[in-house]
């Protein structure tokens, strides 16, 4: 077999793909969250500052989605084909959400008229919420599994996407992003807006903890097989435990005003959540509950060994480069938002 540091290439690429998706959830998560809470800010100047807080970086954050799409397409083309043709309608709605969000950020500042800005504020907020919810909905369905036929093609219907578990995951995702985004904005704002965001951050922490708890209890009661991995390997309980500690640490840091630590904690929460999902589904990329033999795994969905090797080289060369200039851009725009004539 083809191994690299003790793991085969398929596992490596699964890890790379997971890391990219986590990177996307962490980075775009805070700007999607900032967008989702946008209408809670009432004053035009507050909204303008909040938008400029993510202004120079949201586009770089969305790159992770593009890299993730490419990573799945290149490494696991069968899964790429099955997942996106299955989620045809929700994904199209997600994409339209992305379009509207991108242009609302760009268009809003271009005219001084109040109605114009208010209209784009609504578009921006609704699009951010739709994107977060549809991401969560698709994640929930992937975790549960989808009906697949012998050609590894989706054979279910559209309405089945809206099952209770997936809807709960969708709401939890929105809550998580809103909390993450509110904490990010507290780091970027001052004065009364800052105070307002501090309060909002606390509210979204409650929103997240409640929806997360309900989803967890529902899962344990009605979809117990999703806990199989952790039930059979008690040593891995450290992961959910760490995650609960990370969640608990968020309100604690917010209370004492250490927003950077709170942000790090919510970042760790997102990573650990996705690590748990990854461990639970591994080695499946898309599980077919009715016909397990039709499931898509990291082995039967994979590209050739040669392509895997090429991709790993690309990741090894590309990731440090992306890391360097992403850090440079974040460092350039660090600190509180300062508006100037080039701002949105």
């Amino acid at each position: 077999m083809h191994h690299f540091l003790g793991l085969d290439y398929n596992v490596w690429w699964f890890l790379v793909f997971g890391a990219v998706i986590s990177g996307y959830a962490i980075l775009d998560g805070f700007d999607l969250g900032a967008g989702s809470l946008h209408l809670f800010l009432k004053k035009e100047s507050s909204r303008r500052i909040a938008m400029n807080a993510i202004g120079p970086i949201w586009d770089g954050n969305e790159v992770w989605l593009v890299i993730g799409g490419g990573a799945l397409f290149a490494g696991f083309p069968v899964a790429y084909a099955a997942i996106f043709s299955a989620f045809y309608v929700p994904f199209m709605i997600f994409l339209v959400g992305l379009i509207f969000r991108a242009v609302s950020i760009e268009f809003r500042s271009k005219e001084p008229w109040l109605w114009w800005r208010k209209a784009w504020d609504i578009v921006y907020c609704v699009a951010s919420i739709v994107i977060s919810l549809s991401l969560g909905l698709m994640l929930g369905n992937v975790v549960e599994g989808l009906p697949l036929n012998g050609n590894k093609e989706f054979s279910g219907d559209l309405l089945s996407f809206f099952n209770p578990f997936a809807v709960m995951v969708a709401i939890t995702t929105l809550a998580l992003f809103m909390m993450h985004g509110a904490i990010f904005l507290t780091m970027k704002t001052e004065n009364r807006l800052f105070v307002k965001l501090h309060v909002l951050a606390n509210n979204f922490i409650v929103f997240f903890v409640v929806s997360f708890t309900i989803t967890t209890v529902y899962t344990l009661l009605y979809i117990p097989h999703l806990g199989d991995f952790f039930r059979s390997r008690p040593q891995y309980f450290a992961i959910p435990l760490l995650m609960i500690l990370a969640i608990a640490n968020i309100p604690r840091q917010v209370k004492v005003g250490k927003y950077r630590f709170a942000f790090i904690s919510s970042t760790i929460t997102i990573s650990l959540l996705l690590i748990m999902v990854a461990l639970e589904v591994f080695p499946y990329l898309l599980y077919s509950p009715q016909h397990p033999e039709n499931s898509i795994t990291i082995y039967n969905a994979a590209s050739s060994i040669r392509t895997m090797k090429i991709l790993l080289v690309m990741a090894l060369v590309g990731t440090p480069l992306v890391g360097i200039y992403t850090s440079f851009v974040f460092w350039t725009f660090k600190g509180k938002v300062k508006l100037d004539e080039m701002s949105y």
Partner: protein
Amino acid sequence: MDVEILARVQFAFTIGFHYIYPPLSIGLGLMLVILEGLYLRTGQRIYEMAVRFWIRIFALIFGIGVATGIIMEFEFGTNWATYSKYVGDIFGSALAAEGIFAFALESGFLGILIFGWNRVGPRIHFFSTIMVFLGSMFSAVWIVVANSWQQTPAGYHIVGEGLNARAEITDFWAMVFNPSSVDRILHVWTGAILAGAFLVLSVNAWYLLHRKHVEIARPTFKISLLVVTVFSLLQLFIGDRSAEVVAHYQPAKLAAMEGHFDSSAIADMYILGYVDKKAEKTNGLKIPGGLSFLTYGSFKTPVTGLRAFKPEDRPSQVNSVFQFYHLMVASGVAMIFLSLLGCWLWWRKKLFNYRWLLWVYALSVLLPQIANQAGWFTAEMGRQPWVVYGMLRTSDALSRAVTANQIVFSLILFTIVYIVLFTLFLFLLNRKIQHGPVDYGTKEEIESGQRRDNPLLEHHGVQG
């Protein structure tokens, strides 16, 4: 309606709309590098005003380009699932490379380009501008590599049979440098640079017509005139090379481009014409033997015609391929003519003397757009009925889990969204152009408070 037609219409519509923007970004990127370089070198205020004005236009164009581009990356999976499985090994690698090596570069530095003018030093800002430009050029490389592989596949072998058949890489660099990629990358780059440079040219022509910002418009017009002259002439040779590659590797496409049916006959080159597919005959104004000459360097050598291919292996819309190809060539010729005319008048010191000519330049922004769109329609419709030339038919490449209704739904959705977007884009572009470049004042002036009347701050309504 038929799923195949709907999926093709959807792809053509979404990619055609997307393709308005990235070429503009590439071309404007080059113009930004030139203008900012001139500013750094000369320190003249007019170049600063020009570059900061064009950065704002660039941001608008780039934003729509990104938003419509993300759709494309996922449309292969949603509408062309069988294709995705078949070519993922190869096509996916090129898309992944585009994401990590190109798109990340341009999006990363874009923040500094747009928002960093007062945050970083001039040299770092200039560096960021260059990085954004290079990122957009690299982006084009990987996308054109992926598409060229569909036209002239190389460096692969087929594994499996029937529904499980797929292409796997045997040689990565042979795949990247497949027979058509280098020529097509140059062709696309040049077309893109023309799109951006003609936009600058036309906006400045408009300013000159309305006697606005004349002190900026004159030098910027001349700079963009030089750029369009160099690149429209270059395109003549690069385009010819691209056609030679088509002649060699995709004879059916070449035959369709000139409506040539009979393999034993010398091939003509049409200036204007119409292909009668039923009668297998092309009528119009032609240069006898022109295509033979371009392909083989002799007016007497026969060229493979469409009858050499089975009907099911011929491009289905021969007349469309013919018309798009000729539209592209005509636009290219018009661009060369306008560039050379401008240079000659400049040399005679009469460049800005004719108002009607400035109007022609103001409208010339449409030429590269028409050429770019028509060129892609030629390339893609000429490749039919194949999605991967000679290997996979378009009709076999669809998503079988997706129904016609779903595609109709998303097609209607995208049509509405894109109409709204395009209207807003034109509206905002027009407003920005009407508003024009702004003198922000020097750093000292701003800091000492002499510039409290800063028109842009007021325009953007900064409040407490």
